[in-house]
């Protein structure tokens, strides 16, 4: 990044300056990552660590080149499951949160159920869902959705309630209807809370999809992880894990970007 910025200062003055600023602000992080990779290379080379135990960075890079097609075909099922899980898990969480906020009875009845579901380890739930729904996409999407559900539910309930009494008084003096209070007051003021949860969900939905693929699946990054492990193809394993991490980072960045565009106010509270 820094090289590009230095190499083309005259041709793209604005863009290169932006890149340069990012580089100058981020150089400690970039240097740290590069340093760790170099240390990793030195350790694996210097101590003659066998490749199946821990591949060197160069070998991992080579795995990307040799298994590019395999990685590419297996990343899409995981993307699909993670995205659908993200969508449905959060959608249901938002709807349930709205229901809870409008019906204390519903909250008293189902909040404990939600907490209980959250305490069941997702990895224990995966086999049950595979038995129920087979080997297709359905159990994976459900697991990815389940893992998104709880944090969003909790945050959304908090967000919808994070309305000051004064703001409610204002709406009452204006004779606002319940639906108007919801759309014009509760929902916008819950957005910062919602996005805090969505950022968590952006990374956990990938985890959910991969964990689900560990159990009885023949496709996806999760299946590739299992296959690479059992066949001692360690460099492929590392490459797959990197792809999974990059996927999570990408989803996180997209959500963060959406947040920055949608929420331009700082304070989450009406004041």
């Amino acid at each position: 990044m820094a090289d590009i910025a230095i190499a083309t200062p005259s041709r793209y003055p604005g863009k290169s300056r932006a890149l340069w600023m990012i580089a100058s602000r981020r150089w400690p992080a970039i240097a740290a990552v590069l340093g760790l990779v170099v240390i990793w290379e030195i350790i694996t080379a210097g101590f003659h660590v066998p490749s199946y135990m821990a591949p060197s960075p160069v070998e991992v890079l080579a795995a990307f080149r040799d298994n590019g097609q395999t990685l590419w075909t297996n990343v899409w099922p995981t993307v699909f499951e993670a995205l659908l899980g993200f969508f449905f898990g959060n959608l249901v969480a938002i709807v349930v949160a709205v229901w809870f906020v409008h019906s204390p009875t519903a909250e008293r009845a189902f909040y404990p159920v939600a907490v209980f579901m959250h305490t069941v380890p997702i990895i224990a739930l995966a086999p049950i869902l595979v038995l129920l729904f087979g080997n297709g996409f359905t159990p994976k999407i459900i697991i990815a959705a389940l893992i998104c559900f709880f944090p969003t539910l909790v945050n959304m309930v908090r967000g919808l309630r994070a309305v000051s009494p004064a703001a409610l008084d204002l709406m009452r003096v204006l004779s606002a209807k319940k639906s108007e209070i919801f759309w014009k007051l509760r929902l916008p003021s819950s957005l910062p809370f919602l996005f805090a949860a969505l950022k968590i969900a952006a990374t956990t939905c990938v985890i959910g999809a991969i964990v689900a693929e560990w159990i009885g699946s023949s496709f996806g990054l999760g299946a590739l992880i299992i296959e690479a492990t059992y066949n001692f193809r360690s460099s492929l394993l590392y490459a797959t894990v990197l792809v999974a991490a990059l996927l999570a980072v990408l989803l996180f960045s997209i959500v963060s970007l959406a947040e920055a565009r949608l929420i331009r106010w700082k304070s989450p509270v009406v004041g």
Partner: protein
Amino acid sequence: MNQLAVELTRQAGAHPAISVENLDVVFGAGGKGVTALAGVNVTIPTGGLVTMLGPSGCGKSTLLRALADLVPAAAGEISIFGRSPRLAREARDFAFVFQDATLLPWRSAIDNVRLPLEVGGGAPKHADPAELLDLVGLKGREKALPEELSGGMRQRVAIARALVTRPRILLMDEPFGALDEITRDKLNEELLRIWQETGTTIVFVTHSIPEAVFLGQKVLVLAANPGRVREYVPVELPFPRRLKVRDTLEFVQITAHLRQLLEEC
């Protein structure tokens, strides 16, 4: 009689803007209820500017909230242009200005001013939001988010928002209480200007004696435990008033009298 004639009769003063008779307000149900207001009687004429003053817990905010239909009356009668507070609220007879500006942080200044026109079925008549922001001295800041405005500016937006439905009554609950004194003085002067330009009836709650005297045609002094009317003090100072009126002997005499009253409360 058609609607217009009804309006004209009202405005001709068939009813005072606000009349309160033997009002009791009780918080909490049953025997444990706390009496916030007991036997309050007060009349506020159309176009008047009355300030309410009293020690903490005297129920001055409660009285204002009862007028605004935010607190129910346990006994007695409140009439706003001859209607109950609920009907008056639905008819947009009054607007309320809170101690905090209570602006929606995701809306720009002008969109905050528009809010009353978007909810509760809109308003029968309304003012131009841009003109109102101009009236409160915020021309050019229409697009600013609340967080980009100072405390004083936010409260100006809140006043513009209150005026957008062209209310006949403005109920103000310590609107300048959280502001520094210089900003407060400036807004006091501007409120008087707005009052004279719009002819709106204003009821203004404050815990500042000079503010109560500077603004009010009359000062309603309340006493605590239970909240009740102590005295309804006329302020015989001519309008338009400037800040320096506070250095006159009359002003000082009235504030001294009020201070005396509050000490006895």
